[in-house]
């Protein structure tokens, strides 16, 4: 051991090359040339926010704006960390915690990193809905998220790999999170995040990108239909030997269609079915994705009847014919009983709500609620591709009362039952009914659609949901 000689020829050579480059750089650079000097800082929050500027925290609508703070008494091997207090689900200031951290100023050059990393713990074992980066409240072009992030009560390190670092040459969206109380029975908890930074780990490898969650899916589509390619993920093997899958925005991928004149896909993953059949595939960073989507066009889609009522007589929730009020969601996905999934689409510029695996689903518009005192009728167009013989369909219109939140003891509602006589398979039905019998209807916030009595209805399209006055 003692006589071992150490020489570092590689290092020497590298240094030699550096020198050559430096010498050749002595030539004059054209005065017109200007280089962008974006910050290559990876740190986001160590013991305090790092180079984020003054105005960097933007909470989501409906979340509790004060959820985020700097805790001077907790930290991972330090005295400070980010603390996020997830509120009770009946907190009037917001029913969950969620926000983006965006650089206040020019973006950063993150191309030399391979992951967002942080240490985190919570007041109790809990699964956080989503954590990621790349949301800037602009195009969110390079958004990445990890869903169902499991936190324990002790500090652990988390790694969210960058699907393709070369894309992040000018990024402002440093971090985002969305955390509710689905796992805690609606009860509040807190979690801490520290040492939040982009890092070059070097130990991330084996990229395995996927579209359609790696499946080879065949889907029928109406002529003119536009739909978003889904199931876009990137999977890496981490230094731990474990695989990590993240959701990756379409802009990380290069999409292609086997015949773009028949089925076209744009850079944002929006597919337009024109005619015939074609296969959508993709690459990410020159790696072919697993999964594909074969689109078979199956003729034209019958659009719902175009509404003719005067806009001044209408409060619209969902229609391309009117200006719609703000809607919280068209499918809140109420666990654990709801099975309904959304597969919304656009045909020739006309947006369509499409529910699959339907049992019940709600449209919520509580921010703000709708004052329908003067608009005491409801209009909905519904299209059932197939109609079961024992169909019983229930629509509930719910007023949230003075507190303007779901529940709280001051809600009222109106329920309308429909059966097979009200529908015809393959044809748009127009359902219109009065809610004048509701005592209060100045804080309406929710419309619920339900398949009752267990008919085999699984799929429906919905369009032109609105309140109206007069005839």
């Amino acid at each position, binding site marked *: 051991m003692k006589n*071992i000689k150490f020489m570092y020829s590689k290092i020497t050579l590298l240094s030699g090359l550096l020198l050559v480059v430096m010498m050749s750089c002595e030539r004059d650079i054209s005065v017109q040339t200007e280089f962008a000097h974006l910050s290559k800082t990876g740190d986001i929050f160590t013991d305090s926010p790092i180079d984020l500027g003054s105005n960097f925290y933007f909470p989501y609508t409906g979340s509790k704006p004060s959820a985020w703070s700097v805790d001077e008494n907790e930290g991972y091997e330090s005295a400070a960390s980010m603390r996020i207090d997830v509120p009770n689900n009946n907190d009037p200031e917001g029913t969950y915690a969620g926000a983006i951290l965006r650089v206040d100023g020019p973006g950063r050059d993150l191309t030399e990193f391979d992951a967002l990393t942080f240490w985190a713990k919570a007041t109790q074992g809990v699964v956080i809905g989503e954590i990621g980066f790349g949301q800037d409240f602009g195009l969110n072009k390079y958004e990445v998220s990890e869903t169902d992030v499991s936190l324990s009560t002790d500090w652990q390190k988390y790694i969210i790999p960058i699907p393709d670092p070369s894309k992040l040459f000018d990024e402002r969206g440093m971090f985002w999170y969305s955390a509710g109380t689905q796992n805690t029975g609606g009860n509040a908890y807190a979690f801490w995040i520290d040492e939040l930074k982009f890092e070059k780990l070097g130990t991330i490898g084996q990229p395995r990108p996927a579209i359609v969650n790696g499946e080879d899916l065949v889907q029928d589509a109406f002529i003119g239909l536009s739909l978003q390619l889904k199931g876009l993920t990137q999977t890496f093997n981490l230094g731990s030997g474990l695989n990590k899958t993240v959701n990756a925005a379409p802009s990380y991928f290069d999409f292609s269609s086997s015949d773009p004149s028949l089925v076209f896909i744009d850079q944002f993953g929006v597919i337009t079915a024109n005619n015939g059949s074609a296969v959508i595939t993709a690459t990410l960073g020159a790696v072919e994705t697993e999964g594909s989507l074969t689109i078979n066009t199956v003729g034209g889609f019958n659009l719902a009847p175009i509404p003719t009522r005067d806009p001044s007589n209408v409060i619209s929730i969902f229609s391309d014919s009117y200006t719609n009020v703000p809607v919280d969601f068209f499918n809140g996905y109420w666990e654990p009983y709801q099975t309904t999934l959304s597969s919304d689409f656009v045909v020739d510029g006309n947006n369509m709500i499409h529910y699959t695996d339907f049992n019940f689903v709600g449209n919520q518009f509580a921010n703000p609620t709708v004052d329908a005192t003067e608009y005491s009728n409801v209009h909905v167009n519904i299209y059932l591709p197939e109609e079961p013989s024992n169909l019983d369909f229930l629509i509930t219109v719910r007023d949230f009362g003075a507190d303007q939140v779901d529940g709280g003891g001051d809600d009222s509602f109106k329920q309308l039952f429909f059966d097979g006589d009200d529908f015809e398979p393959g044809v748009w039905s127009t359902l219109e009914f009065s809610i004048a019998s509701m005592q209060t209807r100045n804080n309406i916030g929710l419309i619920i659609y339900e398949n009752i009595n267990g008919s085999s209805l699984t799929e429906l399209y919905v369009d032109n949901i609105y309140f109206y006055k007069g005839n």
Partner: protein
Amino acid sequence: MDKTNKYKLRIHTLLLKSFLFISILTIASCDTDKTQTVATFTNLVMADEFDVEGAPNSEIWNYDIGTGPGLDGWGNNELQYYTDRPENVTVQNGMLVISALEENHNGSSYTSAKLITKGKFSQSFGRFEARIKVPGGSGLWPAFWLLGENVDVDGWPQCGEIDIMEYRKQEPTKVSGSIHGPGYSGESTPQGQVSKSYDLGNDRYDAGFHVFGIEWGYQYINYYVDDVLYNQITPSDIAVTPADAVYTLNDRVDAVEATDDIPAVEAVEPTDVTGDWVFNKPFFIIINLAVGGNFPGNPDNGEAFPQNMLVDYVRVYKQ
């Protein structure tokens, strides 16, 4: 001892890095000395640079074929059937390519290759190194190792085994270097082989080529990866497990009574080599890519195949 060594080595590295950088900037010269950094044996006695396309050089390499003499996946429940077909082993673009395929072949679900120099090249002591890129898939077991030339006479583990590099996906930043011998074979619990892994820290082995080597002399084996010497194994590291294990060589002589034609032969008990350092004798080289088995586990469902192990060169030096 190991930890101390490694720590010192890193300190040296840092000091040298900064020293070299400064000297380059000031004197602007370029040191092109390519001397291997951690090994001192420089007398090249055998090398395969894999420069000739096609089948590997038959003057150096033999093959193990099949699923092992016990038909049990070479004693490790490995899943592959080894062949010497070009689909499984070939030289391309200056590289030996060992390809693990997923296919039904003679009752196995995978095929791959195992190259050995047995009967063609063996040596006592020296520096054995290879530049290898390991495949990154699950359930794979690429290895570069040596086996005692007397394996067919005395069996394993009496012959001794020197593992220069073993890798599995569960630990993508680590390789391990080990010895197995009589009484410290690794078959028992606690496992008795002498082993240590080397962690790249900020890189993973499936991302590029690395030099894996030993420098092996009388009563010692030094292990290195690239320019880092990470372990030395000597007889003092051996502990027999279980303590009552007994391993002997196959050199028993039975007594023969004298007759008119032949003189008497005295009985000789077989040589007990339990716990002995069995590495002061010739060993041959093995390079293989196993699929499945006790060390890496089986491949994940849907794992991509083929998976390729690339070897840029194999070189053997004497002191």
